[in-house]
């Protein structure tokens, strides 16, 4: 039974019961209401003329206005389940009372209005309750099956009514429908009063990371402000405005299609055959609707995504009516058009429409939906009916005119649906929002208020705040706004930063203020003052610093003077030579200062000296030499700078210096990356260095890394770099990124498949050491799973640089089932794409497999088309892991195999020790001597060829 069910419904653990409850509730409501409608129509039309129906429609429309408002308040006060329960009991009670009332004209009007209003309310309440119980991801899988409960209820209700009428009077159907409502209400009492998402395991995980602050005052997911009317809510939201337009156009189109079909049939089919004609086609379409519901709805939704799936019905209607417009009203086309409506409206379209409401907050959903589904649609029906009547009265009711009108409406509906995609994604973007403001969008210009804020910071006593103000103005190219008074600040840090800033911004008008600091008590400040004055060309002031007691101050003065006054070799300047000759700490400080001064006064004549200093044994000297290389362009610097990337102490400055060397350095980095002889520690840092160039060439080089680089770590670094460049607007070869993305997703699923049998062997008696080594193997596999998934998301970010994919990833890992589902739906909608490539389609499927709520075993089973043969047992898995290309994984698996001591595993380890000696795995001598192990190893060797 479960197997048969699984062919129709993708049910996951814990979902069966709530889905069955929803199915049964919907079945009961629709069955009871169908029976009530049957009795109502029969009673009304046997006692009153059909023309009075128009009056009833008006009453229903007016009643809907009142009931919708009451219903919203009622649900808010008592909760969704209790409201539905009460409405069912109330409907049963009222219907029973009506059964006992003599059916005069007034009673019939009341009965008709009563059933119509309650039918609207019950359906809306039931779907809202269902919406609360499931996430959007579950909805896509389950709503088709759940909605089939409604279709089945209609079939059973109508069939039972027809059968019962042979035995009981029509009015008795009222009592029977009351009984069905009561039974449904009783069934509802067995369900929890506050439905919870069936996958909401946040409490069990004990953690609820969020993607937005609970108290965020901006850009929260949409929610109505207290006291706001439903209309205001609708008109205040771009999404809801489109939903309103969608309701209007779809209601008008469907009414028009219905009228077009009936009028075409009335013109074509003989009057005597009309009854059987309608009966036959309605039966066929009901059957088709049920089949679509059960077999296709979920699949179409999952394959196409919600919004594209919703374009199917208007597309078919537009095509059908377009054909009728051309052909002049062929009955076959009318049947096909109405057939699309019959098959899809209550199946795919209904479920898709329900899913469109899911991303909204419950209170928004309740308020807006109540209004649109009842008042909105009834009003549109009334207007459309009046329009059709007017057309007929004016002699414009020909099939061609009607088809044209309907085609226009259907095209409008289609367009509105397509335009909904970006708004639908926006809802998820808001729910998963990364931040509130786009920092990249902040241009360099500062307005008056901003300048005021920065100047306020500059006058602060807080040194860090002043420094922040200086740096901000410098970065925003408003350096002239920094006042010279900052040089009077009491903080050494501010003075040092201000003096450095004076050099960077060429504020030579500050010279008198800077000169004052030559007498400052702190040598660092005096040194900085000399640096500034030297840069400004204030030689006389600088010369006074040659007498300073501090060698660093003297060094800066000497370099500044030598570069401007020495014609040939400035490093031969006597003061400089004297400073170089100093030993001990004073000597080190002097050389450091000389190198800093060279950086301040970049002069190609110092290039040889810098190359020599770069090879110095003292790290502080090397760092300063590399820093100075940033200021002098010389191709000879490039090779040592690339080599310097292997040491973290100089990596950052070496990167800066390489960027300063320009395109020649970029090409050298490209060559180093392509050269397998480049040491790994250097290669590992090449991608980030390349990304620092920020150019299109840099992006292209990094994209080249993805398909050809064997090291996953370096590929990761390349994709991090690519991510930054993509955000900055560089073009990235989408095909290469897609291939890498697919590779990472497959790898993730392969690792899940490898870990699963091992996870199942945890707790099985393996012995202390084996359990410990198993835990490490598993931890490594889990790390790698996480890593490959995270990389996949980073690659997705490169493909969608403007989307907050990171936010979706964070949401995916959260304990909040609704948030996870929103992330899933966001990714699904995003990866649907307008023109997906074959790889893109595979990625969408893989992404779904990797992120969906599935057990490891189920995930592996569903991913089998993408995976090599997956292991079933602990032993099979360890054997595979011993042969893994990843050295760490293979090594750990080998040690675990040694701990387990099973001959086949030991044989594999013995083989491995010979084949991969670089792993340094050794088999204990006693085990090596074991004949069974040797036999197994021989078998393994033969097996390996």
């Amino acid at each position, binding site marked *: 039974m479960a197997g048969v069910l699984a062919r129709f419904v993708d049910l996951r653990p814990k979902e069966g019961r709530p889905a069955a409850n929803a199915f049964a509730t919907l079945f009961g409501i629709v069955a009871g209401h169908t029976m009530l409608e049957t009795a109502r129509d029969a009673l009304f039309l046997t006692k009153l003329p059909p023309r009075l129906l128009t009056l009833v429609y008006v009453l229903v429309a007016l009643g809907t206005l009142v009931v919708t408002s009451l219903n919203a308040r009622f649900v808010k006060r008592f909760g969704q389940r209790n409201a539905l329960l009460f409405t069912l009991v109330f409907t049963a009670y009222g219907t029973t009372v009506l059964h006992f009332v003599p059916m005069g004209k007034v009673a019939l009007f009341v009965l008709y209005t009563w059933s119509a209003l309650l039918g609207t309310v019950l359906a809306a309440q039931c779907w809202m309750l269902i919406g609360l119980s499931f996430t959007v991801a579950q909805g896509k899988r389950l709503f088709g099956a759940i909605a089939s409960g409604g279709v089945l209820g209609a079939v059973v209700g109508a069939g039972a009514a027809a059968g019962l009428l042979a035995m009981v009077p029509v009015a008795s159907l009222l009592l029977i429908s009351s009984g069905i409502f009561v039974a449904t209400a009783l069934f509802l009492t067995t369900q929890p009063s506050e439905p919870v998402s069936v996958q909401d395991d946040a409490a069990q995980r004990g*953690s*609820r*990371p*969020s993607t*937005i*602050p*609970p*108290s*965020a*005052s*901006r850009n929260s997911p949409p929610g109505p402000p207290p006291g706001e009317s439903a209309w205001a809510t609708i008109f205040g939201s771009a999404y809801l405005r489109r939903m309103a337009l969608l309701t209007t156009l779809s209601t008008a189109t469907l009414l028009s299609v219905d009228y077009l079909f009936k009028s075409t049939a009335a013109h074509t089919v003989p009057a005597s055959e009309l009854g059987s004609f309608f009966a036959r086609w309605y039966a066929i379409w009901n059957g088709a609707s049920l089949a679509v519901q059960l077999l296709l709805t979920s699949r179409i939704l999952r394959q196409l995504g919600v919004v594209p799936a919703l374009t199917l019905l208007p597309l078919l209607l537009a095509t059908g009516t377009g054909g009728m417009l051309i052909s002049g009203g062929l009955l076959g086309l009318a049947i096909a058009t109405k057939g699309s409506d019959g098959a899809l409206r209550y199946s795919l379209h209904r479920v898709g429409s329900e899913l469109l409401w899911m991303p909204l907050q419950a209170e928004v959903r309740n308020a807006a939906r109540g209004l649109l589904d009842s008042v909105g649609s009834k009003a549109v029906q009334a207007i459309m009916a009046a329009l059709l009547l007017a057309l007929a009265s004016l002699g414009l009711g020909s099939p061609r005119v009607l088809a044209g009108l309907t085609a226009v409406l259907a095209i409008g509906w289609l367009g509105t649906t397509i335009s909904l995609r970006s708004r639908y994604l926006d809802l998820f973007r808001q729910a998963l929002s*990364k*931040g*509130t*403001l*786009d*920092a*990249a*969008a*902040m*241009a360099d210009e500062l*307005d008056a*208020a*901003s300048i005021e*804020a*920065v100047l306020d*910071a500059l006058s602060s006593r*807080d040194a*860090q*705040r002043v*420094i*922040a103000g200086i*740096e*901000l103005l*410098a*970065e925003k190219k408003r350096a002239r706004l920094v006042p010279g008074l900052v040089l009077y600040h009491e903080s050494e840090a501010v003075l040092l930063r201000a003096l450095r800033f004076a050099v960077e911004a060429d504020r030579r008008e500050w010279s008198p203020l800077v000169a004052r600091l030559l007498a400052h008590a702190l040598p660092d400040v005096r040194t900085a003052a000399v640096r500034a004055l030297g840069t400004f060309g204030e030689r006389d002031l600088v010369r006074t610093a040659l007498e300073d007691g501090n060698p660093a101050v003297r060094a800066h003065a000497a370099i500044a003077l030598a570069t401007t006054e020495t014609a040939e070799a400035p490093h031969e300047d006597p003061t400089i030579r004297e400073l170089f000759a100093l030993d001990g700490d004073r000597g080190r400080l002097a050389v450091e200062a000389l190198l800093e001064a060279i950086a301040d006064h970049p002069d190609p004549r110092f290039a040889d000296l810098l190359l020599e200093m770069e090879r110095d044994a003292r790290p502080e000297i090397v760092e300063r030499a590399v820093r100075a290389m940033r200021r002098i362009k010389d191709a000879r610097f490039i090779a040592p700078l690339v080599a310097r990337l292997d*040491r*973290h*102490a100089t*990596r*950052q400055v070496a990167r800066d210096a390489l960027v300063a060397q320009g395109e020649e350095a970029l090409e050298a980095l490209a060559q180093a990356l392509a050269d397998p002889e480049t040491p790994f520690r250097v290669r*590992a840092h090449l991608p980030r260095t390349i990304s620092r160039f920020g150019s299109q060439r840099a992006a292209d080089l990094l994209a080249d890394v993805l398909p050809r680089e064997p090291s996953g770590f370096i590929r990761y670094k390349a994709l991090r770099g690519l991510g*930054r460049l993509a955000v900055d607007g560089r073009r990235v070869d989408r095909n290469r990124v897609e291939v890498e993305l697919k590779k990472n997703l497959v790898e993730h699923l392969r690792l899940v498949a490898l870990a699963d049998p091992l996870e199942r062997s945890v707790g099985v008696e393996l012995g202390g050491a084996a359990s*410990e*080594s198993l835990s*490490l193997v598993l931890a*490594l596999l889990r*790390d*790698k799973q996480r890593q490959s998934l995270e990389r996949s998301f980073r690659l997705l970010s490169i493909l969608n640089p403007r989307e907050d994919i*990171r936010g979706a*990833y*964070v949401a995916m890992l959260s304990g909040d089932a609704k948030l996870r589902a929103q992330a899933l739906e966001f990714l699904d909608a995003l990866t649907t794409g307008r023109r997906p490539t074959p790889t893109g389609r595979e990625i969408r499927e893989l992404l779904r497999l990797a992120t969906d709520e599935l057990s490891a075993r189920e995930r592996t089973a569903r991913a089998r088309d993408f995976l090599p043969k997956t292991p079933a047992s602990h032993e099979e898995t360890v054997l595979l892991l011993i042969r893994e290309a990843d050295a*760490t994984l293979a*090594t*750990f698996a080998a*040690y*675990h195999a040694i701990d387990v001591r099973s001959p086949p595993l030991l044989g594999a380890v013995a083989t491995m020790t010979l084949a991969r000696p670089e792993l*340094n*795995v*050794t088999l204990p001598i006693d085990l090596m001597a074991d004949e069974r192990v040797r036999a197994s190893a021989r078998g393994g060797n033969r097996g390996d060829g």
Partner: protein
Amino acid sequence: MATDDRQELLERELFLRALLAAPAGSSLVKSLTGSMHRVEVPKDGVLYHQGSDDGAIHFIVRGAVELRADGAAPLELAAPAIVGLFDVLLRRPYTRTAHAKTDLVALWLRQEDWFDALEDNFDAARTAIRRSGENIWRMHLEVGESGGFPPPAKPTEPPKRGLNLLERTLALRTVVCFRGATVQALAELAQTAEERFLEPGETLLREGDLVRSIFVVTSGVVRVERADGKLAATFGPGCVVGGASAVQAERAPFTAIGDAPAVLLEIEHPALYDAIEDHVEMIRSILAGTAYERDEIERIKGNRVPGTVMIDGRARGA
């Protein structure tokens, strides 16, 4: 971009530059600025509740906040401050409720964005590690002779052979400040580590010496003491000699001597910092190690509720 938004971004940028002392040209501030949410809490309102957990860090931009919990003295903090970071590092719900003492403006940042920014700004990550190491070391010296370090477990016999890669990785995995690191990162560290044997009475480090490595005890005991008598602690298996702050020390702030035959894994600073740069979760793991030690010290000091605060040292109530 609207004027209000521009103003907001500028305020954030000024605030973050001042608080984090990010070097000029660093992308740290830029990447954080756009990832934050502004949160305004009126006086007497609550920024977050004890026991709640949104996995976020709060930067107090304007106003003052009081962190309250039963059984602990309230902590008052004024802007600029960072609150909630230790709870995030230790992956636990907030241990205190943050009440607004005044009208409060805060910036809310999800932890993943914080660590992403650190990954992209290694200097900032190093600064964060250095600062938290220095702070925790000061606290160790203030808490008494034991330094707040737990006594070592019963000494184990040194193994008769060298440790293989798996055993080394397992040993590193037991170290508090590496618990959050991936196995891959630890295996890389384990590969670069040198095994050191220390006899009782043998000196490993002398106070004031330049330090170029950290030492992880895998068996035996190492004694640590200071000339000023402020510290006399012992470290056993699963410990870094000197605790989490040792990862940033440039000079040994203590003398370390073998107390029982010990096997140590020596990891050189360059290898450690390479691992930190290569594996972002190492940053988090080491910061969490310092947060954990801080919690222990708070407990020794009698605070039943551990701290939740990490600030720049310039705010009141630090």
